[in-house]
C-alpha cells in the first residue's frame, strides 16, 4: 500500500529540518496555505490529508482503524517511517494536536517537538472538567452535518443503492477546499468529539508548545490550561487571534509564535 498516495503527502521547502503539518477536523492540508510560505526557505515541510479528507485515497478507509484516534496516529507514524523522517516538529491543529501526541507517545524518538494549535483532550464536559460541550451539542453537530451533506438530487433511492457498493468508496470528492466524504466525516466527527484522551497527556515526553486563541469556543482557555498542566514539558502562548483557526484568520501572529518557539528551543533551520 502506498502511504504517500493514501494520505496525499506533499513535500515542499528547501531546508532539512522537518516540519510536519497536520490538519484538523473538517478541513484538509490546504488550511496551512498562509503558513507554509514563511517556512519554505529554511525547512522541509511535509503536508498530508487524513484518509477521507481532501485528496486522500478514500478507498483506503477502514472503519475499525479510523474508529479510534490511534488509527489516525498510525497514519502520522507511517508517513514518518515511510519517508524516514527524524527529529520532526509536528504542527497539529485541533484534533491533530491529540493525534500528534498519541503518535509521539508511541514513537517519541521520531519527534523533536509538538506545536499544538488549539488543542483539547476531551470536548465533552466531565465531572470536574469543562470540555465545553454536552453530548446534546455533539448530536446536534451530527444532525447539522447530515443536513449539509444530503445528496438531494439523488435522493429518492439511488443514494441508498449507491451505499451498498460502498466498500471501495471510489467516489470522487469535489475539487473544492475542505471537501469531504459524508460518511467518513461523520465518523471522524464522532471519534474527534467523543474521545477522551485526558489520561494520555502525562505520557507525552516530547516538549510541546500550546497556541491558545482568545475566545475559542471549541478549545477554551480552561482547556488550554488543562493541557499545559498535564503535559510535562510544555509552554503556552496566548494569542491575540480569536476563534479556533488562527493559522487562517491571523497567519502572521501564528507564524511569529511558531518562529519564536523554534528560536527559543534552538531549532535552527
Amino acid at each position, binding site marked *: 500500500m502506498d502511504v504517500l498516495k493514501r494520505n496525499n503527502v506533499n513535500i515542499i521547502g528547501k531546508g532539512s529540518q522537518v516540519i510536519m503539518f497536520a490538519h484538523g477536523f473538517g478541513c484538509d492540508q490546504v488550511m496551512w496555505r498562509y503558513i507554509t510560505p514563511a517556512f519554505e526557505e529554511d525547512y522541509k515541510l511535509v503536508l498530508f490529508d487524513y484518509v477521507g479528507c481532501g485528496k486522500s485515497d478514500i478507498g483506503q478507509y477502514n472503519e475499525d482503524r479510523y474508529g479510534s484516534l490511534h488509527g489516525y496516529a498510525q497514519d502520522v507514524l507511517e508517513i514518518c517511517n515511510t519517508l524516514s523522517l527524524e527529529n520532526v516538529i509536528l504542527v497539529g491543529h485541533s484534533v491533530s494536536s491529540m493525534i500528534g501526541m498519541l503518535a509521539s507517545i508511541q514513537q517519541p524518538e521520531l519527534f523533536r517537538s509538538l506545536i499544538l494549535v488549539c488543542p483539547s483532550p476531551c470536548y465533552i464536559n466531565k465531572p470536574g472538567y469543562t470540555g465545553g460541550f454536552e453530548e446534546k451539542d455533539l448530536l446536534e453537530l451530527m444532525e447539522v452535518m447530515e443536513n449539509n451533506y444530503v445528496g438531494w438530487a439523488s435522493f429518492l433511492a439511488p443514494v*441508498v443503492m449507491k451505499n451498498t457498493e460502498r466498500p471501495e468508496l471510489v467516489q470522487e470528492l469535489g475539487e473544492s477546499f475542505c471537501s469531504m466524504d459524508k460518511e467518513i466525516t461523520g465518523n471522524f466527527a464522532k471519534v474527534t468529539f467523543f474521545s477522551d484522551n485526558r489520561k494520555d497527556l502525562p505520557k507525552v515526553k516530547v516538549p510541546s508548545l500550546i497556541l491558545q486563541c482568545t475566545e475559542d*469556543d*471549541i478549545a477554551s482557555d480552561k482547556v488550554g490550561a488543562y493541557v499545559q498542566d498535564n503535559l510535562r514539558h510544555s509552554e503556552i502562548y496566548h494569542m491575540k487571534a480569536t476563534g479556533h483557526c488562527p493559522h487562517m484568520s491571523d497567519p502572521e501572529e501564528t507564524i511569529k509564535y511558531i518562529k519564536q518557539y523554534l528560536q527559543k528551543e534552538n531549532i535552527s533551520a
Partner: protein
Amino acid sequence: MLSHLEYDELEVIGRLRFEDLLTGGSRIFYKTHFLPMLLMQGKVDEMFLSLSSKSGKEYPVLMNMVLSGNSDTPTVDAVGLHMAKRNKYEKGILEAKQAAEKALKENDVLLKMKAELERHQELLEQQLRELKRINKEHVEFNKVLAHDMQEPLRKIQLFAGLLEGKTEKEGVGEEFGSYLKKLQGLSEYSRDLLMRLQHYHSLESRINNFTTGNLEEMIQAAISKLSIPEIQPDLTHLRVKDVRGDIPRLTWVLKELLANAYQFRTQGKPLYIEISSDLIKDNYYKTVQDAYRYTDFIQIRIKDNSQGFPINDQDKIFGLLQKFHVGSGTGLGLAYCKKIVDLHYGHILIKDIAGGGSQFTILLPYLS
C-alpha cells in the same frame, strides 16, 4: 429575525458574535468547516445552520456568506433564509433515509460478515492442518537434534580420543597431533552447538504458565545473576511495572540484553544503560490484514551507549547464529530473546541511536 430569536437589537449589536447565535452543534461545524472555507476561498454557499433563540428554540437557516472589506478590517456579508418548514420536511426524509440506510447497511454488514466468516473458517482449517504437520515435524526434528545427531559426534570424539592415546604412545609427528586436536575441538563445538540448537528449537514446550511479575524486581534479578559491577541501569523512567508472562524467561531476556550492552560497551567510556517502560496503545493485529483493535501494550526500552550493531537489518540481528563482533558468544542469544518475546505475542526491535549506542524495544500485551 431578531424577534424570532427573542432578542432586541441592543442585546445583539456589538455584544454577541455570530457564532453566539448558533446552537452548540452548528457552532462546532461552522468554526471547524465553514469558517475555514470562508477564510480560504472568500465565500461559502448554502450552509445549513441552526440558530438558537434566547430561550433555546431552534431556528434553522440556509445561509450564503462572502468575505468583503479589506485585509485590515475584513467584514462578512451574509444572507440567510429561514427554512423551518422545509427543514421539517427534510428532517422527515432524512430520518426515513437514515433508517433505510441503516437497515441496508446492517444487512450488508451481516452478509459480508457471513462471507468473511466462511472464508476465515476455511483458512483456519488449512492453517490448523499445516500447524499439525509442522508440529509433527518439529517433534521428529527435535528427536534428531537431541539423539541421532549427537550420537555420531559423540563417537567421533570417542575415536579421536582413542587415536590420541595411541599417537601419544607411539610418538607420531607433532603435525599429526595438532590435526587431531583441531578435530576434537571442532566436534566438541558442534556438539555444544547442537545442544543449544535443540534447546532453542524445543523452547515452546518448556515455556512456563503465565504469571504477573514486577519489572523492577525482574531487572534486579537479572542484574544480580550477572554480578558485573558496571551494570547499574538507570531505572528512574520505569512508569509501568506489571508484566504478564513466563517471568523467569522474560527475566532471562533482560539479563541477556544487559549482558549484551556490557559485552559491546564502548572502550574508554563508562557504561550507561537506561531502562524505561510505558503503557502504549498499539494495534493488536499484526498478522491479520486490515484488522484493527487498539489495545494496551507495555513498552520496555533498554538504551545504552555501547558500540551498536554494524548492520540495521532486524531479521539478521535476531536471526540464528548471527555474530556481529569477533569473539562474541554462539550467536544464539538474541534469537533466543526474540523467540521468547514472540511466544508472548510481543515484539522486539532494535534501533541504533544517533551518536552511538543501541536501543532495544520490547512490546508485550499488557496484562492480557
